[in-house]
């Protein structure tokens, strides 16, 4: 490599006052590319404006990619204070920024899916709880018939598992559709990376290039993909099953704790009316009172147990 650069950081060159007839010509372009750094820095457009701190980047091109490390080493020796980077750094910076965008998308997706998962689990548990709370009477009947708590829990868990399996299958199908949609509509992130020019500059080891990479740039595309892997599907199904199991266990545990008497006392709002009309019909011997259309306006304005005869309450004699 030409060592004309080693004068770059040396003592100030005497101010150039001599005429430069070659300025502005193609010959001048060629000659200007061989300027010493100190002279380049002292060359101003006018007499007073200096380029003292203006020239701070020098492009150096090597004649082959394999010699870049050697050139870099020599440059470090010649210009110990300069920061020397090469195309690989630039390329890796660009790729790195694209990559960090990709990893950001990945991380965002991961945490988003975790949040959605937690919300879904919570929702499943809440819904199962409310469903079980509405079926307390049913479970009370089962307990009165002699069902053990574990059996009731198993029943609820089984129902939740079936719902989980169906939901998981629907979710996998929906996920397939969504992934296909993303693949179809995917926006491509593009980045323009300057590549090293073709290595035909034989003989010139180091030259002042105007703009490295202006001759040959190539574009890097990062495509947004939604890969569907067997692992992801398996995870989805397992999570759906786990959600069903968890929700069912919670709901079943609450349902199985109740004693049948307590559960059966939680009558639905109309059931004491049924018992009341039945009782009054059998007591009076008239069929008219048993008709719900007649009986309900008289009965159901009452609060449970105030107007209805005491015997009309649902079975509360079973104590354990």
């Amino acid at each position, binding site marked *: 490599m030409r060592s004309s650069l080693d004068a770059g950081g040396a003592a100030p060159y005497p101010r150039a006052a001599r005429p430069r007839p070659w300025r502005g010509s193609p010959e001048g372009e060629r000659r200007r590319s061989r300027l010493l750094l100190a002279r380049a820095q002292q060359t101003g457009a006018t007499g007073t404006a200096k380029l003292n701190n203006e020239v701070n980047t020098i492009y150096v091109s090597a004649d082959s990619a394999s010699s870049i490390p050697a050139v870099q080493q020599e440059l470090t020796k010649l210009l110990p204070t300069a920061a020397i980077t090469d195309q690989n750094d630039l390329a890796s910076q660009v790729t790195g920024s694209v990559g960090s965008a990709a990893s950001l998308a990945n991380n965002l997706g991961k945490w988003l899916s975790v949040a959605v998962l937690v919300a879904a689990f919570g929702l499943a548990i809440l819904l199962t709880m409310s469903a079980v709370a509405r079926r307390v*009477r*049913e479970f009370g*009947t*089962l*307990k*009165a*018939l*002699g*069902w*053990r*708590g574990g*059996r009731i829990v198993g029943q609820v868990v089984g129902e939740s598992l079936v719902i989980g399996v169906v939901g998981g299958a629907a979710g996998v199908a929906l996920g397939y559709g969504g992934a296909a949609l993303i693949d179809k509509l995917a926006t491509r992130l593009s980045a323009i990376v300057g590549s090293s020019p073709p290595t035909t500059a034989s003989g010139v080891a180091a030259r002042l290039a105007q703009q490295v990479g202006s001759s040959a740039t190539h574009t890097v595309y990062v495509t947004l993909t939604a890969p569907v892997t067997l692992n992801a599907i398996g995870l989805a199904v397992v999570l759906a099953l786990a959600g069903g199991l968890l929700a069912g266990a919670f709901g079943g545990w609450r349902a199985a704790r109740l004693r*049948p008497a307590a559960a*059966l006392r939680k*009558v639905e709002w109309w*059931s004491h009316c*049924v*018992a009341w009309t*039945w009782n009054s019909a059998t007591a009076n011997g008239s069929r008219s009172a048993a008709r719900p259309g007649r009986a309900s306006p008289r009965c159901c304005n009452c609060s449970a147990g105030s107007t209805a005869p005491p*015997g*009309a*309450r*649902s*079975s509360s004699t*079973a104590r*354990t």
Partner: protein
Amino acid sequence: MSERVVARVRARSIGFVFQAFNLMPMLSAAENVETALAPLGVGGAERRRLILIAALIVIVAIVVGVLIYLRRSRRDRDGRGES
């Protein structure tokens, strides 16, 4: 008493008479009967056989009851106590 023992007593020794029907609306009539047989440890096939027998008995009872009713009402209409 443990929950297990209580459940056993409820299944084998106590009969509940519900004032409301307390049927499961999503189950068939036979399945509703099965809910009471399940805690007794009766197998599925045996349960269905028992329920079939019970249903036949109930049908026979209904037929007999209707016949008795018809006979009685005819007797009432005719006004002669001949039974």
